[in-house]
C-alpha cells in the first residue's frame, strides 16, 4: 500500500512540476480561448477506527479499520463566444482499506482483510454570463471487488442580476451492482470466494444484484449582507433494488444465522442549511444544520460549527465541532434480537439509535509565492478530527489538501 501511495504522490508531483511556471498566466484577467489547466487539487486522507459492532459478525465483533485515500482533481477552463466559460473537471480517486472484520466473511476468519476502490469521474459546465445560467453534465464510475457503480448527472443553476442569490438543481442517477459474496457457512456450494473486499480469491460465476439510486438536489444561496450568507439545501433520494449487503450476518432469537435482508426500496429526505458569518476582520463562523428522515424509520439531526480565525492574511486556524443523533431503523435489532419470522432484519449498528461527536482542527495556509520551490502551490490545508459514537465506535481522521494554480 505504501508503494501505491508513494507512486501516486510521486507521479502527481512530477506532473505538477511540468506546469509549475505557468501560474502567472492562469491567474491573470486574460480569458483564454484555449482549454487551460486552471487548478489542481490533491486530497489525501487517512482514517482509522476501532469498535466492536461489526455487521459481518452479526453485530458483535471487531470494527478495526484503516483506510487510505488519494484523489487528484484537475480543472480545465476555456472561454468561448459571447463570454461563455466552459469548465472541465477530471477526478481520479484511489482508496485502500484493511478491515479486520472482512476476515470473518469466512467463518474461520481466513478471508482477506484488504480492499481497493478506484473511482474516476468527469464533468463539464458551461456558464453563460449573459443569461446568468450554468449548465453541466457529468459521469462517474466506481470499482471495488464487491461493488461497481456507474452514474451520470446534470446540473442547472441561475443567479440573480446582482449576483446575491443563486438557485441550482442537480440530478444524479446511479446504477450499481452488488456482488453476492455470502458468509462461508451460508454460501451456495458452487461459488468459491475467499474475501468480501479484495480480488485475491477465485471468483468466477458470482452473481450480482442491482441497486439504483435517483437523487435530485436543490440549493438556494443568498448573500444576506456584507458579512453573512446562507444556503438552503434539499435532496430527494429514491433507491431501489438490492439495498443490503450479502456478507452481513444476522443471528436470530432461535440462535440460527442468516443474511441481512432489507426492503427493496428506500426514500430519503435530507434538508440542510449553511450559515456563514464574518465577525469583525479575523473571525468567521461556519455553521451547518441538517434534518434527515427516511422510509426505513431513521430520523437524524446533524449540527456543526467551525470557527475560522485568521492568524495572518495567509494562515487561518479553525477548530470545529459536529454533533449527530439518529433514531433506530425499523429493521434493526442487536445479535439474537430478531425472530426468524421477521420480514426484514439487520444487525448493522449504522441503523441503530446513537449519537456521535466529532471534533478537531483545520489549518489553511495560502502562501503568496508557493512553497518548497513550487511556485504554483497556492494552498495547503490540513485537517484532523476525532470521532466518537455512543455505540463504542471511535475513529481518527487526517486529511491534506494541496492546491496548485
Amino acid at each position, binding site marked *: 500500500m505504501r508503494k501505491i501511495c508513494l507512486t501516486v504522490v510521486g507521479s502527481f508531483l512530477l506532473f505538477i512540476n511540468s506546469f509549475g511556471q505557468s501560474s502567472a498566466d492562469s491567474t491573470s484577467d486574460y480569458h483564454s480561448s484555449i482549454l487551460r489547466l486552471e487548478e489542481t487539487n490533491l*486530497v489525501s*486522507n487517512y*482514517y482509522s*477506527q476501532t469498535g466492536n459492532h461489526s455487521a459481518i459478525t452479526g453485530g458483535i465483533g471487531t470494527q478495526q479499520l484503516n*483506510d487510505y*485515500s488519494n484523489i487528484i*482533481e484537475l480543472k480545465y477552463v476555456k472561454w468561448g463566444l459571447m463570454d461563455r466559460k466552459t469548465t472541465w473537471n477530471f477526478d481520479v480517486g484511489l482508496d485502500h482499506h484493511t478491515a479486520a472484520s472482512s476476515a470473518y466473511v469466512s467463518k474461520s476468519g481466513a478471508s482477506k482483510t484488504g480492499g481497493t*476502490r478506484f473511482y474516476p469521474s468527469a464533468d463539464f459546465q458551461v456558464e453563460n454570463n449573459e443569461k446568468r445560467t450554468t449548465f453541466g453534465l457529468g459521469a*462517474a464510475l466506481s470499482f471495488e471487488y*464487491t461493488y461497481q*457503480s456507474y*452514474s451520470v448527472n446534470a446540473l442547472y443553476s441561475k443567479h440573480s442580476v446582482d449576483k*446575491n442569490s443563486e438557485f441550482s438543481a442537480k440530478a*444524479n442517477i*446511479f446504477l450499481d451492482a*452488488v456482488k453476492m459474496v455470502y458468509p462461508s457457512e451460508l454460501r451456495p456450494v458452487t461459488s468459491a470466494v475467499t474475501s468480501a473486499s479484495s480480488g485475491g480469491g477465485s471468483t468466477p460465476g458470482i452473481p450480482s444484484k442491482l441497486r439504483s*439510486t435517483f*437523487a435530485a*438536489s436543490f440549493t438556494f*444561496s*443568498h*448573500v444576506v*449582507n*456584507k458579512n453573512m*450568507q*446562507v444556503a438552503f*439545501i434539499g*435532496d430527494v*433520494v429514491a*433507491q431501489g433494488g438490492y439495498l443490503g449487503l450479502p456478507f452481513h450476518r444476522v443471528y436470530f432469537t432461535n440462535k440460527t444465522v442468516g443474511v441481512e435482508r432489507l426492503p427493496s426500496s428506500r426514500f*430519503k429526505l*435530507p*434538508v*440542510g*442549511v449553511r*450559515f*456563514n458569518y*464574518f465577525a469583525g476582520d479575523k473571525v468567521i463562523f461556519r455553521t451547518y444544520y441538517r434534518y*434527515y428522515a*427516511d422510509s426505513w424509520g*431513521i430520523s*437524524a439531526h*446533524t449540527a456543526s460549527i467551525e470557527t475560522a480565525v485568521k492568524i495572518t492574511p495567509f494562515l*487561518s486556524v479553525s477548530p470545529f465541532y459536529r454533533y*449527530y443523533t439518529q433514531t433506530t*431503523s425499523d429493521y434493526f435489532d442487536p445479535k439474537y434480537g430478531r425472530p426468524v419470522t421477521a420480514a426484514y432484519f439487520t444487525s448493522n449498528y*449504522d*441503523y441503530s439509535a446513537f449519537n*456521535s461527536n*466529532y471534533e478537531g482542527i483545520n489549518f*489553511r495556509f*495560502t502562501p503568496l509565492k508557493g512553497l518548497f520551490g513550487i511556485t504554483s502551490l497556492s494552498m495547503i*490545508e*490540513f*485537517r484532523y478530527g476525532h*470521532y466518537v459514537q455512543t455505540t463504542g*465506535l471511535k475513529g481518527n*481522521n487526517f*486529511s491534506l*489538501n494541496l492546491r496548485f494554480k
Partner: protein
Amino acid sequence: MQKRNVLAGILAVTAISFLLSSCVTVKEYQKNKINDAEMELSARKVEKGENSFQTYTEGASGANGGKVGGGCGCN
C-alpha cells in the same frame, strides 16, 4: 419526538424570517468578506474523507454536496 420536530420547524421559520428581513443588496465591491475562501457555502475539499467515513458509519446522508447513498456500498 413530534414536539421536538414542531419546535425545530418554528425555530427554522423564525430564523429564515429574521434572515430575509435583514437582507440588503450587496454590491460587488462590497463583497471582499463574502468572497473570502473561508466563507464558501460548501464543504471544504479537505472534508471529503470525513464525509465519506460518516456516510459509511451513520444512517443519514445528503444535503451537504456529498454522497447520498448511491455509488458506494454505504448507507
